[in-house]
Each structure stands twice: as C-alpha cells, then as structure tokens.
C-alpha cells in the first residue's frame, strides 16, 4: 500500500478517535456546559407555554388549552421578557432586510427553475434567446436559490435568533446591513454574468471570481454582528443553535474563498475541489443554518426543551466531522484516486450518526405533541422540514453506496434528492421560521392566515409530486443507462413523462411561493386588520412593557 494511503487512513482513525473522546468529555460535562443550556431558550415560568406568533389570539388560546392548560397561568419574569423585547428590537432591521431580499430571490429562483424544468421536455420552446438557454437558466436557478433565497433566509433567521439566544441586543447591526447589500449586489451581478454567458463553469461556483469577492466580503460582514454579540453576551451557556450558526458563519467564507481562488485549480484536482465545496456548501452552510432554526423553533413553539442536550452536541460535532468529507461520492466511477472515493463513501455512511442524533432529538421533542402540528403553521413547516432532513440524509447515505450510485449517478434521481434536501428540509424550515419571526419583527399580525395554509398545501403537494415522480423517472433512466444493449435515446424517452410531472410539481411550488411573497409584502406594508397588540404581545404584561418602551423611544 502506498505511504499516502496509510497516512490518510491513520489520520482518519486518529480523528475519529479524537472526535469520540471530545464528545464523551462534553457529555461528562468536562468542558462545563451542561444540559441546563437546553432550557436557556425559556424564561422563568415560560416552559410549558406555547408560542406561535403566526396564530390569532383565539387560535393561540385553543393551542395552549390543548397542549398544557395548566401552564397558561404561569407568570413570567418582567425583566427577562423585557430583555427579549429589546433583543428582538435590536435584530428587527437587519433580519427584515435579509428576509425581504430572500423572498424576492425566492420568486426569481422559482421562475428560473420553472423555465429550466419546462425546457427539458419542450426543447424547442424559447430557443431564440441565447441568455435563456437551458445551460444558463439552470445554473441561474441554482445560484439564485442557493445564494439568494437560502443564504439570505438562513442568515436573516440567524441574525434574529442570535440576540435572543445570547440575551444580548445585537451589536454591529450596520455590518449586517452593509453585508446584506454587498451580497445582494454580488448575487445580482453573478446571475447577470451567467445569463450573459460569463460562467466559471463549475457547478455551485459559476459566479466569476470578480463577483465572488463581493460575496466573500458580504458574507464576512454579515458574520461580524455574530462575533460582536458573542463577545458581549450576557448568557453563560451557548445554546446548540449558536454552535451551528457560529460554525456555519465561520466555515462559509473559508469554503467560498478557497474554492474561488482564480488560476489555482486544474483538471481532476479541480473536480475534487469542486465537490469538496459543493457538498460542504450544503453540509457546512445550509444544513447548520437550517438545523439551528429547527433546534430553536420546535421546542419554542411547543414550550418544551429539546429531548437531549448532549445528543445535540454529538450531532453537531459529528456533522462537522463527517459531512465535511463526503464530497467524493459525487465522483464515484470517475477518474479520481480510489481512496478519495472510498473516503467519500465511508463518511457518507457515517453521516447516519449526526442524522440520527438530530432525528432522535427533534422527533422525541415532538413525540407526544403531534397535535401541536394541527394548531401551529410554524411548527407544521418546521417539523415536516426536520423529517425531510432525516429522509434526505438517509437517502444520501444510501446513494453513496457503489451499487446504488451506479444507477442514480448521472440521472434525475440526484436532482430529486437535491430538492428534498434543500427544499423539503431547508426551505420548509425557513418558511416556518419566517412565519414565526415576521410578526415579531414587524409588530403586525399575518393579515390573511388562510394564505399560510394555502402556501403550505401548494408547496407540500408540489414537492411531493416533484420528488416522487422525478425519483422514479431518474431510477428508470439509470437502469437504461446501465444496459449497454439499449440505445441511449431510450434513457431520454423514458424520462419525458416524469420531467413533465416535475414541471407540474414545480408549478405548484412556484404558485405557493407567489402566495407567500404576496402575503409577506402585504404584511410588511401593513395590510389587513390591525390586531397587532394582541397578536404580538400575547399577555398584557408584555403589552405594557412594549407601550412603555414605545413611549420612552418616542
């Protein structure tokens, strides 16, 4: 065996060992953080109280009555609630800016996705315009949803959660404003470049490197408030969401920076780098941001702390370790060193550990509280998102196995898988989070609650159709691709009905997003009945505090 392989193997074994020792020592409390951190998101007397700002006052009472009637009369501490009010106010501006940009990009991303989807089964439609050819509108779709919608939504929700979790008003909000605007300009220019045909040519890294500088700077600026607030935190322990968000905001600039150094990468090495980045963008950027939100909102809405704090830490560190090395599975069967692929497969299978840690934790928290889903639109989105995380991850581990990968590689099956991850999981969690935080940010109730249900059913049905049919179509395509006795064109023909079904699913999702965007802007512009005070403040003490504060600031 080559010395390099032995070295790599040893590094791997040592790191796994180190990880295990590390997690064990944490669970023994050797580093000082104990399970009390899981109760940190509740103020005194607040545990047992449900919270969903997307509900009307009557719905909220029914929800509380159904879940835990006894807790309704618990009294909360004035000072702590006041702290949270100040915290919410401090983050409202930057969070609103990020979320607004996210919703705008979601709209354009959906349109681009629809066009790309239709072009695959209508190849002679709209072919005269070069800028909208499939090979451009498809990467435009990916880049808009990844860097426009998902990143802005994730960062917006993170900015909103940070002051709450650290019980400290957000510091350095102006860096977040500046960062968001720079990032937004970057995404706009990047999308324009791809449409104009100026692409770097690597999946997930299409933006020209000149534009990447803007994203690098913008991302860095948006991380500054996190650091500044952390340095001034008033809370003793870091809640698990802070671990996820903090790491994600540290990881992303490194990933993005290394991947975009011009004139450095070449040939097959560039391919390994490409999938080191491509999968880490999912694993070390979107996934932690999504999980951070799920870890906060699920217990918060239900009014119960997460099942196991130690499990959540195990989940965090094992995710960081295993997820960061899975990218090799994108090159199975390709001209890359075999150890590289084997490592990718091994780590992909090991991903079962962090996934189970999250699954057990989040589902045990929800277990016995499933009726909460009936009441809370926030929770419906987030819990389904968390379930999709488990599904997508287990599916991903399976897909990395050589025998399965042989069929699914190079097919639409992979595309369906990508959507159950970034849409079914991440976007659903973000939808739910936005429904929760917007009433807090704007101090206005969602004007048309029925639109929330409409949005939910449109996108749930849409992604269901999308995922199921495209997975079947992709699998059939893969079987034909593997059968050398069949002409290649059979593999194209077999997918066409499934590609049409995908457009149908995508159309429903797009409709859902339009409903969501209209509702979002109706709220931001304060349409609809003014039920603000009850909606936002829930109990009267909160209201008094708010009014007092308003008088002080006026």
């Amino acid at each position, binding site marked *: 065996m*080559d010395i390099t392989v032995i070295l*790599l193997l040893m590094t791997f074994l040592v790191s796994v060992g180190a990880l295990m020792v*590390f997690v064990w020592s944490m669970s023994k409390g050797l*580093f*000082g*953080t104990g399970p009390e951190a899981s109760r940190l998101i509740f103020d005194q007397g607040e545990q047992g109280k449900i919270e969903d700002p997307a509900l009307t006052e009557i719905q909220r009472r029914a929800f509380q009555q159904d879940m835990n009637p006894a807790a309704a009369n618990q009294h909360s501490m004035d000072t702590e609630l006041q702290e949270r009010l100040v915290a919410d106010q401090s983050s409202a501006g930057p969070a609103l800016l990020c979320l607004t940009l996210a919703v705008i990009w979601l709209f354009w991303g959906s349109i681009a996705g629809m066009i790309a989807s239709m072009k695959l*089964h209508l*190849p*002679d439609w709209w*072919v005269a315009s*070069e800028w909208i*050819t*499939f*090979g*451009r509108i*498809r990467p435009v779709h990916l880049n808009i949803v990844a860097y426009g919608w998902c990143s802005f939504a994730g960062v917006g929700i993170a900015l909103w959660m940070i002051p709450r979790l650290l019980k400290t008003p957000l510091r350095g909000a102006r860096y977040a404003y500046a960062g968001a605007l720079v990032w937004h300009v970057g995404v706009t220019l990047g999308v324009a470049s791809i449409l104009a*045909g*100026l*692409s770097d*040519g*690597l999946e997930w890294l299409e933006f020209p490197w000149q534009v990447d500088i803007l994203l690098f700077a913008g991302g860095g600026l948006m991380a500054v408030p996190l650091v500044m607030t*952390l340095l001034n935190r008033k809370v003793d322990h*870091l809640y698990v969401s802070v671990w996820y968000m*903090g*790491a994600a905001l*540290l*990881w992303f600039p*490194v990933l993005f920076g*290394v991947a975009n150094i011009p004139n450095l*990468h*070449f*040939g*097959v*090495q560039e391919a*390994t*780098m490409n999938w*080191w980045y491509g999968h880490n963008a999912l694993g070390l950027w979107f996934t932690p941001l999504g999980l951070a939100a799920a870890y906060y909102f699920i217990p918060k809405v239900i009014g119960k702390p997460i099942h196991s704090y130690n499990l959540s830490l195990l989940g965090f*560190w094992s995710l*960081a*370790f295993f997820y*960061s*090395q899975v990218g090799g599975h994108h090159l199975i*069967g*390709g*001209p890359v*060193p*075999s*150890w*590289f692929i084997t490592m990718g497969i091994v780590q992909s299978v090991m991903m079962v550990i962090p996934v189970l840690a999250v699954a057990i934790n989040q589902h045990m928290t929800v277990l016995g509280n499933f009726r909460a889903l009936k009441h809370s639109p926030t929770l419906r989105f987030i819990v389904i998102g968390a379930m999709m995380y488990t599904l997508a991850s287990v599916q991903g581990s399976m897909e990395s196995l050589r025998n399965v990968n*042989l069929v699914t590689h*190079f*097919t*639409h099956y992979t595309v369906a898988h990508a959507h159950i991850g970034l849409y079914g999981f991440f976007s659903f969690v973000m939808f739910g989070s936005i429904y929760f935080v917007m009433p807090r940010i704007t101090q206005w109730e969602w004007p048309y609650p029925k639109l929330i249900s409409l949005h939910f059913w449109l996108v749930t049905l849409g992604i269901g159709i999308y995922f199921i049919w495209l997975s079947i179509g992709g699998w059939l395509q893969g079987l034909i*691709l593997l059968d*050398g*006795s069949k002409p290649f064109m059979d*593999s*194209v023909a077999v*997918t066409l009905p499934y*590609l049409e079904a995908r457009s149908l699913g995508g159309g429903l999702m797009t409709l859902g997003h339009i409903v969501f965007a209209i509702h979002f802007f109706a709220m931001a512009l304060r349409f609809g009945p003014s039920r603000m005070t009850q909606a936002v403040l829930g109990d009267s003490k909160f209201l008094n505090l708010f009014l007092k504060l308003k008088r002080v600031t006026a």
Partner: protein
Amino acid sequence: MKIGHFDEFKLVTGAMAILALATSIMVVVPYLLLDKVHPVGTALKPYSMAELKGRNEYVSQGCVYCHSQQPRDPAFNSADQERGWGRPSVASDYFYDRPHLLGTMRTGPDLMNIAVRQPSKDWHLGHLYQPRAYTPGSNMPAYPFLFEEIPATEVRKDHVVINLPPDFAVEGTAVVATPRALDLVAYLLAMDRTYPVIPGLEGDAMPKKKTVKE
C-alpha cells in the same frame, strides 16, 4: 480571553480544525498528487486557439449540465464501453482542462470521445442548429443563435452553410454557421481521448514514484 468565552474558543478551534482536515484531504492532497500527473508519453496535445474558444463556448452554453466527460471503467459498469464511449478516462486526460468539465448528468451522452463517434463537422453543425433533425426524440435545446439565417441568394464563398435534412430545410433560406458555432465544433472534434495509456500508471491518479516521468 475571558473564562466565560471558553465555549467560543472550542467552537472556533474545533470547527476550523475539522474544516482544515477536510480541506487537506480533499483539496491539498489531490493538488500535490495530481500536480505530478503529466500526460507525457501519450498523444494528448494542448488545445488549439479555436478549440479553446470552442471550449469557452461549451462552458458559456452550459453543456456540462447535461453531458459528462468521464467514460466509466468496465469493471464498474460495461455500458459505456458497449456504447463506444471510449476507454475509462484517467487523470492525465484532463491535464489541460481549466475549468474541469467532468459533469454530473447524462441527460445527454458522455462527450469525452464524441469526435470518434461523430467525426463529421456537418453533422455537428446541423445538430447544434436543430438536434431533432438528426436525433429524433432528443431533448437537447436548439441553438439557432449560433447561426445566421440568410436568403440563399446572399451566400458568400466564405460562408459555412449547413446542410439540413429535407424535412427541416427551408427553401430559399441558407443557415450559416457563426464563428462561435465553428469554434464549438472544433472543440467537439478535438474530443478524442482514445490514445493508449498504461493501466495502473496513468489509470491511478496516485502514481508510484518510479512511474512519474518528468
């Protein structure tokens, strides 16, 4: 550092150490290993000017989103060989490739050796103008913007007119290839990696020291 900020210390060092490990294994090690894999002793030539321009066109039109450039090893699956897509590619085949275009989809066929299967310039030009004229049932986009449609009477000597099948030709109109279309086809016609490589030498991207020729 305040004692209270020990959590942050753990977070930053732990997170960055893990990312550094992944980056070393997945980016730095391949860089060091593959830097030595030269296509010495093979028939691989650097791209010509026209081929490079064509390659940029390939990138610009996003061909990579439907076409891979990596025939697989028959030991893994024999279909690629049976379809005549060429021998399994090795790392040195990509020596001149920036950006790499290995691809992740086979909505269309693998193009690593398309020049061997389709050596006709006419076929490629016509196929780009209207894929369904040559491959019924294809869902590849048409690229009419890489061509000019002019009255047949205005055709000059230096024009490259494409010969469409009768069903797709319009009488009195000539379809003329633009330089961009010609460059793209020049690149496609350079896609031939069927020259022999010694298995286990170029085949494994981790050559033993003695096999590396400088």
